[in-house]
């Protein structure tokens, strides 16, 4: 019993031969629909913030510096490559690339940021990226947002009009240490 098992085990090990791949010395291509690092095309983005509102890892941050400037920051160090952002983007501005070798000693290598110039709607006073028409309809992130880009923290409040006091306060964002802080 013991011996015949050992013979079977030797056969099991001999048949497949060497299976180890030479990676990373030889590249290992990925299949077509692979979900690698997302890439933002700032020509297409209208600044609707849909991706930020749906990112499960809260990796995409939005900060409205003033009425016309909206900064969007993608912090790849937290990204889970789920591809949800690219699913929801109404302008197809996000592609899931085939990049997966992303280990780095510098966080900036996996960070992308866009500064979008938004125009004010004469009727409702809200802002939209002016190069694409009718963008207001597609806005899913209503109002102004105040995420702290320095701390990479999402601040879950939005206001209808730009609130400069809040903008200043969120600049000094810190996690609470006690109740009521």
């Amino acid at each position, binding site marked *: 019993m013991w011996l015949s098992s050992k013979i079977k085990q030797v056969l099991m090990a001999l048949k497949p031969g060497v299976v180890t791949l030479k990676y990373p010395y030889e590249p290992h291509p990925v299949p077509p629909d692979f979900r690698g690092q997302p890439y933002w095309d700032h020509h297409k983005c209208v600044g609707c913030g849909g991706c930020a509102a749906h990112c499960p*890892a809260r990796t995409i941050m939005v900060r409205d510096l003033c009425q016309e400037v909206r900064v969007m920051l993608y912090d790849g160090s937290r990204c889970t490559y789920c591809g949800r952002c690219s699913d929801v983007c109404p302008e197809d501005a996000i592609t899931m690339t085939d990049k997966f070798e992303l280990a780095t000693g510098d966080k900036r290598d996996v960070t992308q940021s866009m500064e979008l110039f938004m125009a004010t709607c004469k009727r409702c006073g809200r802002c939209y990226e002016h190069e694409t028409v009718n963008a207001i309809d597609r806005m899913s992130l209503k109002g102004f947002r105040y995420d702290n880009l320095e701390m990479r923290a999402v601040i879950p409040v939005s206001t209808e009009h730009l609130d400069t006091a809040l903008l200043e306060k969120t600049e000094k964002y810190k996690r609470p240490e006690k109740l009521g802080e």
Partner: protein
Amino acid sequence: MPRIEEVTQQLSNKFKDGITGIDQPGATQFFADIKKEKVKDICNEIIKMGGRYLVSIGYDNIARDQTLGMIHTFAFDRDNIFCGIRTSVPEQNPVMDSITPDIPNAGWSEREYIDHLGMKFSGHPKPKRLILSDDWPEGLYPLRKSVPWNIQPPSAEGVAYQLDECPEGCTVVPVGPYHPTLHEPAHFALYVDGETIKGCDYRGFMVHRGIEKLCQTQLTYNEIPFVAERICGICGSVHATSYAQSVETAGNIKISRRAEYIRTIMLEIERVHSHLLWLGVAGHLIGFNTVFMHSWRVREPVMWLGERMTGNRKTYGMIVVGGVRRDITPEIKQDILNVMKKIEEELIVIKNAIVGDTSIHKRTKNVGRITKEDAIKWSLVGPVARARGVDIDVRRDHPYAAYDDMQFSVPVVDTCDVWGTVLVRVLETFESIHIIRQALDKMPDDGPILTELAEPIAPFKHAIAGVEAPRGEVVHYIITGEENRPERWRVRAPTYPNLQGVPLMLLNNELADAPIIIGSIDPCFSCTERVQVVDIRSGGVKVLSKAELEAFAKKK
């Protein structure tokens, strides 16, 4: 009369005004509101009627009626019924009877809410801290709504968990928190007399990440599946499916049959993957690395298949509330069939090579032995229970997704030891391949794979969903909430009940067998430890700079 009504009738006849209301939202689940004085009697009665304890859910209801809620859930496996026994205690005096003396597996659930909600259970045999880190401030109950999700109390020095008293004449052998045979942090203190284990205390929950609190306060319904999937690196789809099903049940959302078939296929692919992985780890734990290398070699094509189907080797990201994200095209279908054929052939070779190996028998037979009665008493689940002759399987007993259309058998063996868990898992892998073929064959084409949610989900609806993960049964409990997110979401992974049975399995075994006994439940500590508070261990962490790290590496 359907069995569910019989059960509710019987309960209300017996306890009359001990039960204040019964809510039966569907044909397979009911919720009974009871007076807190009766909790022990009613739970014991349910066990007597053939119920199996699942998990308890505590929640903060202070804003509405100044109470803390507590729900004990049970399953009637032969009748496809889930039930929840709901009660509450006032915030000012949150004391209720413990059900642990009679239902030992409730021990951890109750301790969890001592830590998280500040509840008290009279008669609990071991009301020690379970989940929160030792330096977490007293009186700060993270699951209460008044505590912000991102609170970060300063860390404290000189606090440590007090292990149980070591029995007379025994020596403590610490295993963990970092240990070669445990791949995740957990601490077992084994009390040994010579070579024989006489007792054990467990301190885990070191990777407790606060997922439930995070999802209840920050994320929305359709973001949570992605977080749920990351509860476990191996049974990701299981958690996502279980979560999605609980929301769909609570919100009365009907999804297409095709989506259900795709979910079934994903779940079974995951099982094939997980069992091959476990077989390798088990071989490794008993020092048999040939098995380890070769079952992992056979497993690798499953990872590549996942990459082609879903865009990622693991954490597939397929399942969301309302269906699935990617379809199975004819090419992918053929691809799956080819991969499964190959795996089946290779697995037969592995199986034949190991079943007769006496060295494996010597290491696993009669090791970690517990009786069927004990397995039932401790509410063990999955292959661990099925290796002890307990015939339960959620796929058959509480069918979900497309399992009602599938023909499969549930392997049960009664060797009551570690060898049994090996057998059950190998046999199950063949069944899984069989299910995948059937599902691909019968898959209908009846509408969108993703059903859009037309209306908002009504708040304060309860639902239980169970899914058979490779390691056993996963239970998700949901209370829907306002603001497009759950009010309460409770996850119970299979390791949660099984790990509580480990001290019993270890008892009177040799010290050298401890790794394989712990390994035989296929423990997944990160699943078990999901839950609330974030970043408990902070401060005092030294971060090496890149230059320092390089210098350090060169020095070696």
